[in-house]
């Protein structure tokens, strides 16, 4: 098995080399073929590990100096490898037909396989050096891919800057935390840190945990460290944004769990209350922004922040239960969170791929310029609708099952009579409920404005369906979205195994009741398959009745326009107007800015010549925290620039002062 894992990595590297040296014509098929093969092999290894529990190990001293390169794949890591591999296959198949300008370049062609390979290997890293090496490779390759289109759109550069800074800051935090743990426990292997961790002082443990969680949370897009995410995920090309949003953000969750549960074996209550607070804030803030955003991919990116927030909420609840001694509940909450990671990857991958198709077909991501696409692009539209239903957590698609489980884990935590839990759980349920309602709103807005109604611009009116391979890539994920929603027990045993291998709990399986989804020991059962079948049956039955009742063919008429004939798209609601009530309700959080400019005719100020209305919704965290911080840094930079003014005397003085300081410190 270890050989296969390495074979998968080598296939990825070979695809990368092929992308660098092959002719422009054969570049795409070669890289796609190699990377899909790498993903398939990695998926097979992960499936084997998930099924048997065998731990795959690999070590070589030749790759990294001093430390060596160590891989170790257990069930928990294998779950994330499997998700990355699945998303990777679909995104790469989609890539075959994608016509992005940037992705065909030599650099991008050879970087994409590398990025996918690091996504496959990060969850298998077994010591600090290997982990950081792979983590940084993942960050660097994804940055290069985000920047692929920088020649065509200047916004890409800004997005790249934000991403580069945030990902490096996050990696630095992770580095500090892991190095602290490694030095204090005397070894850099994850297993050895795990053994030594219970004997470390609480200060070291807590400091390391907080720093590491912040580092990983920025990768998972948790608020307030999310600012890079809506930019980078929106500017990246179709398949890359799907890989980032469906697979890369998961690594943030993986890291938090690997360190918090796997190495430190849980901790005091406040750690997990903190994680829950982080999750609740991310979920609400992400959901609100995604509900009010008019840029299709930005909307999806904020929804990623929202969903990772929900996962963190579940992770925090799990840790909270564990820290108060409720092992079986902790396992349930952890299973619910991991299941949400898997299902989020499925529906978000689906949505980002469909959004990429829409962008390719119309040349824009602005919802206010789209409309009527379901008739022009039936396949892409259907994929988007299915993924969107999953995102809105509606029955009977996959998002519903994991949110139901999260709700159940919080509900069953209540009778434990622990005050922290008693306060945290109702708030958690409230957050889940509000984000659920907002996700439904977001879905109706995105699908209703983008796909339905009348086209708002010329490109939307003449859009053509995309290449078949793109529909296949998204279609596989859409199909999975339905299959997992109807039959969640296809994946739940694997997820439970992963959760158990992480926490090493012996608590009974929280979900065991044959073919329906039931919690052991309580009444709560969900049979999504039966619900789905019942819904379809009733819909068909009513459709037949309707056909019988109806006296003649359906009359095609013009829609009612208050007596005005000939509807135009200008009369339709736009994404901005659709979100306006919500913007007003949450004005304090979203802080929208409006600008009305009225110019008058020269002869009389009673006659208006032109009126322009401008409204914008910036990220409040960006405006309140990041912009002032940037300005302060810029001011310091300006001051610092005056210090080296070119005078040789001044430089000699600097050297002198530095030498004195060194001597004083050494003495």
């Amino acid at each position, binding site marked *: 098995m270890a050989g296969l894992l390495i074979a998968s990595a080598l296939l990825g590297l070979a695809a990368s080399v092929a992308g660098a040296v092959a002719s422009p014509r054969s570049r795409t098929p070669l890289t796609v073929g190699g990377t899909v093969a790498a993903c398939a092999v990695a998926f097979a290894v992960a499936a084997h590990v998930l099924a048997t529990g065998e731990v795959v190990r690999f070590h070589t001293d030749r790759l990294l100096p001093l430390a060596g390169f160590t891989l170790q794949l257990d069930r928990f890591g294998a779950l994330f490898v499997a998700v990355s591999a699945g998303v990777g296959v679909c995104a790469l198949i989609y890539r075959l037909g994608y016509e992005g300008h940037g992705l065909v370049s030599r650099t991008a062609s050879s970087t994409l396989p590398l990025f996918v390979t690091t996504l496959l290997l990060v969850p298998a890293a077994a010591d600090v050096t290997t982990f950081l090496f792979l983590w940084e490779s993942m960050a660097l390759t994804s940055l290069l891919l985000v920047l692929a289109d920088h020649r065509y759109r200047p916004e890409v550069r800004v997005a790249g800057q934000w991403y580069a800074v945030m990902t490096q800051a996050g990696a630095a935090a992770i580095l500090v935390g892991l190095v602290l743990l490694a030095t204090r426990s005397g070894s850099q292997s994850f297993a050895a840190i795990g053994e030594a961790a219970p004997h470390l002082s609480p200060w070291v443990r807590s400091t390391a945990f907080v720093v590491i969680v912040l580092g990983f949370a920025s990768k998972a897009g948790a608020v307030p460290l999310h600012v890079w995410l809506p930019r980078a995920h929106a500017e990246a090309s179709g398949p890359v944004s799907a890989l980032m949003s469906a697979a890369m953000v998961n690594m943030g969750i993986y890291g938090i769990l690997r360190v918090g549960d796997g190495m430190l074996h849980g901790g005091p209550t406040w750690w997990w209350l903190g994680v829950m607070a982080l999750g609740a804030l991310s979920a609400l803030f992400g959901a609100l922004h995604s*509900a009010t955003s008019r840029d299709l991919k930005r909307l999806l990116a904020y929804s990623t922040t929202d969903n990772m927030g929900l996962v963190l909420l579940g992770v925090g609840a799990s840790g909270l239960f564990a820290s108060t001694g409720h092992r079986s509940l902790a396992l349930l909450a952890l299973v619910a969170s991991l299941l949400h990671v898997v299902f989020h990857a499925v529906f978000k991958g689906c949505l980002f791929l469909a959004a990429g198709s829409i962008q390719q077909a119309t040349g824009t991501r602005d919802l206010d310029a789209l409309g009527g696409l379901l008739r022009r692009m039936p396949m892409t539209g259907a994929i988007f609708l299915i993924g969107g239903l999953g995102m809105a957590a509606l029955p009977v698609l996959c998002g519903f099952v994991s949110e139901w489980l999260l709700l159940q884990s919080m509900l069953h935590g*209540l009778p434990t009579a622990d005050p922290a839990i008693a306060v945290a*759980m109702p708030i958690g349920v409230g957050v889940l409920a509000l984000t659920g309602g907002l996700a439904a709103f977001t879905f109706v807005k995105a699908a209703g404005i983008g796909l*339905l109604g009348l086209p708002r611009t010329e490109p939307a009116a003449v859009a053509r369906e995309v290449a078949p391979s793109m529909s296949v890539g998204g279609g596989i994920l859409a199909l999975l979205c339905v299959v997992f929603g109807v039959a969640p027990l296809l994946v739940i045993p694997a997820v439970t195994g992963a959760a158990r291998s992480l926490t090493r709990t012996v608590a009974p399986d929280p979900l065991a009741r044959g073919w329906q989804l039931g919690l052991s020991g309580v*009444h709560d059962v969900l049979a999504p398959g039966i619900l789905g079948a*019942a819904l379809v049956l*009733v*819909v068909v039955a009513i459709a037949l009745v309707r056909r019988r009742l109806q006296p003649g063919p359906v009359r095609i008429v013009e829609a009612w326009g208050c007596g005005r004939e000939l*509807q135009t798209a200008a009369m339709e609601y736009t994404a901005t107007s659709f979100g306006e*009530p919500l913007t007003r309700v949450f004005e304090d959080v979203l802080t929208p800015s409006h600008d009305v400019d009225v110019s008058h005719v020269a002869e009389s100020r009673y006659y208006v010549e032109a009126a322009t209305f401008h409204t914008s919704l910036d990220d409040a965290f960006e405006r309140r925290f990041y912009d002032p911080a940037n300005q302060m840094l810029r001011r310091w930079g300006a001051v610092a620039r005056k210090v080296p003014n070119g005078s040789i005397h001044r430089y000699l003085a600097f050297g002198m002062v530095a030498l004195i300081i060194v001597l004083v410190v050494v003495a």
Partner: protein
Amino acid sequence: MRSDWSIGSTVAISLLQVVAMGLGGPLLVGLMRKVRCRLEGRVGPPVRQPLLDLRKLAHRQRMRPERASWIFPLAPLVLVATTVVVAAIAPLLATDPALGWSADLFAVVYLFLLGSVVLGLGALDTGTAFGGMGASRALTIGAVAEPALLVSILALSVPAHSSNLAAIITTSRAHPLLLATPERLLALAAFVIVIVAECGRLPVDNPSTHLELTMIHEAMVLEYSGTDLALVQLGESMRLVVLVSLLADLFLPWGIATGPGPAHLVISLIALTAKVAVLGTILAALEVAMAKLRLFRVPELMAGGFVLAVLAVVSALVLA
């Protein structure tokens, strides 16, 4: 969950529930209209008028805006299907309808949400300003009502340790004193506020208005006609009666059939009719006494409902 119910009898109960809700929905709407009219000093149409309207509409021709896609005709079907499924699986007349064990309160909530979402899509599919306006407003209210709804469910689930409807009803029948506790009353208040919002009744939405500025639900369904309009009206009235019946069964659980015999069911049907009629009359009387809220005051009402529900959960834990 008991096993002494035969499959045949549970399926029969489910069918009976669907029929009862299908007829009861329009009748409840008619009753509430009648009560309103009487209180306002008018005679009003007969209680069975909505049923007559449905019969008339069902045979009228359907119309479809020329630019609409397949979503538009699908939406009324899904709306009715979600309510029919809820009516079939929720313990409304008996504690154990077919598939009742899968009738978790959360599932009921999300099924209703599915109906609203699809109706919103159908509204946007028409490409008119009204469709967008109605969908935007209805879903905004839906989103802010959701926390109050789920947390009041949480409050109800605490004594039963389960969100399973049958379990909650059985527990409160076994411990009638639990029904008068402060947390129950708080949860009741929150639940009523949410039902009003979910069904688009006053003071959140005025179902009888067709004024552009104030329409919410009616704006969404403006383009539906004939059989489709009948389906939309049926779905909405069924949603109202299912929610009011749930309210009746959750807070006044007496009379619901616990055994499979026909005698039980007849008693249960009479009891439920009486409870729903009383609750409907009270709701209608409250509607007469209230004016419609401004759209942007509705979230405050929902926030109030949420606070009540959180208080209900906390007091359930503190007083338990």
